[in-house]
């Protein structure tokens, strides 16, 4: 059973300290008979609704099914429940006080319908898990607060109704079994539900979404990859453009990337593409059907769209197709002091500022600097005095192999790409090359 140190803080602190609290699993309530104030049998408990407006959602109502084959359900307020400990759940009101409908109030979720057996995101472990049971804290006689979601094997066993049997057996044969001590409970704050009633969607996502935003984009990408297509779309739609762009860039499977971008509206998609580095955006657009990518380019801000359009003209397996157009190119006469000033204003929009390229009046590549050179130099020095002349470069039609070779040979973090006139048109960063080098290494290893 859960120990008190797992207990929630914040709004629960006061209540937890009180006497008489204990824990209840949802599986213990599910299908329990319900009796009204006269002691008459009402039906079986099939669901309870919690109010998600609270950090630890209280149970606010319940649903009773009259019979297995009877379609209609009764809904009552949880505050009318007077006992949940006995063989039946006892109500303090007569059966007529129940409403003949299934509750569907805004801000409330039916936990069996929306959570039990469904997939959720565990934002503390950054992965997708399936809900086997739900864990309530019981305050006083009947007040229940949802505090944990059980995703462990023990929850599965409990749902099958084998918990006590298996526990007994294991205590006898293997008392130190990991199973007996391991509970996999996730605190409700770290739960991001996915398969939810669309009517109340927004409420829940806005309550919990900040958890999702705090994850590393690579984690979000992995979660998206693990989800089924519908939940994937739901979650992706709920992300703001910036988070969505970061996550999308981390998704490795181009099929999932295109699927995701096609699940949001074109306006939203254009916003996301603007937030992505142009080379990633171009890669993604090149995977989409022609009409879709044209439409998206039209919806994007002119500047960003221009960068992407330019990149799209290069063949995908050439240096031009690998490069980004976000790089820093500065005139040779600029002083170190002015360069710093320039970087301060330009840097927020540029992914990689460790390498600075120096160009002549016609934007032809004449030198390269890194941040270290800049920091070590006197503020009044001109870039032409401290730069490295005649740096390594590739032509935009050069192959991936050539790019990989040069990056490897000179240990570069970034490689400039030039056109026929030696004018710098882009930059390839090492992370775009690494995956290619890794693939090459694999092929060599496998003897291809």
């Amino acid at each position, binding site marked *: 059973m859960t120990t008190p140190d797992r207990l929630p803080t914040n709004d629960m602190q006061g209540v937890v300290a009180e006497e008489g609290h204990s824990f209840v699993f949802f599986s213990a309530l599910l299908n329990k008979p319900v009796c009204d104030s006269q002691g008459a049998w009402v039906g079986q408990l099939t669901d309870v609704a919690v109010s998600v407006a609270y950090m630890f959602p209280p149970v606010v109502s319940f649903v009773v099914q009259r019979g297995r084959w009877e379609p209609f359900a009764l809904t009552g307020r949880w505050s009318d429940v007077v006992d949940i400990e006995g063989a039946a759940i006892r109500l303090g009101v007569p059966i007529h006080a129940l409403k003949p409908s299934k509750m569907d109030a805004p801000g409330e979720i039916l936990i069996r319908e929306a959570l*039990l*057996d*469904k*997939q959720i995101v565990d934002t503390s472990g950054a*992965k997708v*898990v*399936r*809900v*086997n049971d739900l864990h309530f804290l019981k305050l006083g006689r009947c007040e229940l607060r949802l505090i944990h979601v059980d*995703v462990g094997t023990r929850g*599965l066993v409990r*749902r*099958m109704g084998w918990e006590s049997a298996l526990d007994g057996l294991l205590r006898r044969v293997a008392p130190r079994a990991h199973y007996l001590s391991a509970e996999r409970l996730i605190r409700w704050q770290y739960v991001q539900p996915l*398969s939810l009633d669309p009517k109340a969607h927004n409420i829940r996502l806005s309550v919990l979404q900040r958890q999702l935003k705090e994850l590393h984009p690579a984690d979000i990408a992995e979660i998206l990859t693990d989800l*089924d*297509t*519908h*939940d*994937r*779309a739901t979650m992706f739609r709920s992300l703001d453009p910036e988070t969505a762009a970061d996550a999308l860039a981390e998704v490795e499977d181009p*099929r*999932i990337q295109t*699927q995701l971008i*096609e699940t949001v509206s074109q306006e939203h998609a254009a916003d996301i593409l603007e937030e992505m580095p142009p080379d990633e955006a171009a890669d993604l657009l090149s995977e989409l059907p022609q009409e879709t990518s044209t439409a998206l380019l039209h919806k994007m801000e002119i500047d960003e769209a221009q960068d992407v359009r330019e990149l799209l003209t290069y063949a995908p397996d050439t240096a031009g197709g690998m490069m980004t157009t976000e790089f820093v190119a500065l005139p040779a006469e600029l002083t170190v002091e002015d360069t710093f000033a320039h970087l301060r204003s330009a840097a927020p929009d540029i992914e990689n500022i460790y390498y600075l390229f120096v160009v002549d009046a016609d934007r032809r590549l004449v030198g390269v600097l890194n941040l270290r050179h800049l920091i070590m130099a006197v503020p009044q020095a001109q870039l032409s005095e401290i730069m490295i002349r005649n740096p390594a470069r590739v032509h935009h039609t050069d192959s991936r192999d050539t790019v990989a070779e040069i990056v490897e040979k000179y240990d570069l973090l970034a490689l400039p790409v030039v056109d026929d006139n030696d004018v710098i048109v882009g930059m390839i960063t090492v992370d775009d090359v690494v995956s290619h080098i890794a693939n090459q290494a694999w092929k060599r290893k496998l003897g291809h």
Partner: protein
Amino acid sequence: MAVVGPGIITANVDNDAGGITTYSLAGAQFGYGLLWTLIPITVALIVVQEMCARMGVVTGKGLADLIREQFGVKATFYVMVALLFANLTNTIAEFAGVAAALEIFGVSKYVSIPVAALLVWWLIVYGTYRRVEKVFLVACLFYVSYIISGFMARPPWGEVLTRMVVPEFSWRGEYLAMLIGVVGTTIAPWMQFYLQAAVVEKGVKLSNYRYSYYDVVVGCIVTDVVALFIIVACAATLYTHHISVQSAQDAALALAPLAGKYCAGLFAFGLFNASLFAASILPLSTAYYVCEGFGWETGIDNKFRDAPQFFGLYTALILLGSVFILIPGFPLLAVMYLSQVVNGILLPFVLIFILLLVNRTDLMGKYVNSRTYNIVAWSASAIMILLTVAMVGSLLIGGG
């Protein structure tokens, strides 16, 4: 092309060791007498598979996921245990097929089985689902070897065509058992799980659904065309010359003097290809959907520690599947037959779950079954349930 694959692969895996054995025996024992069943079987197969493909596209979830989410953990548990058992017997049958096929070429099963098991294991370590799919699509081409064998056996084509459309029925016990065997082997329960998972995995969109539909239809037709040629090849030679055979291996060997040794070689090669193909897909897909149903970590990109249930199941299926074959005197034929029986028993349950799910508006929206579709699907299920009951009955009473 991005959508094509799942339907064709599923349907071809269907012609696995158990399938080829059943069709060979059908041809050898009853000649052209069962050909007429292929058309209704194909229709039923298309209906069943199409429902799953549609469910996969509309809900974006696998069949195991949907059963878990809609019917809860208990239903999932029993379905998964039954499926696990059925697929274990199927896996044993596939390895039995590998052993049988390679023994025709003079390779001892003590060599072929460990090599095949390692090869299948290698797929999970170095392969990805998608790359593997390409290999499988190529493997599908090798089913042509059966079509060639069929032609080399020089059947009377006129009679073949007539017997395909003119039903012939017999109440003889063996005939009924074989009829059930042919149905059971063609519409196997694991196929629905595999197809739906593969469609979801491919991320097929509703706008592309008609390509998936064609993929399913073409796959089902191709499967049954291959089945047709296997039956025809065995009918034209073995049945005509009253040669009794026990298995697909016998059939291949017996074909040699009657239809030429290339024909027999092609037949045996086909069996090897089909068995290895199915031995790779079955354990992997089983591990995938069992784990998905229970919410365990899956995926061949994980390390063993991160997905112990997934790797454990996969390894256990391959290990058990191959180890049994190595036991001297292991009744291979009985296991192949048993695997078809287990498939048959499980099928109606799976079909009922499918039909309940595919008719739910909250899941399928406007893509629920049409009335005609429901009539066809329910009656197909009803017939399959009847046949299964009859099969179990005949097994209990007369031993099949």
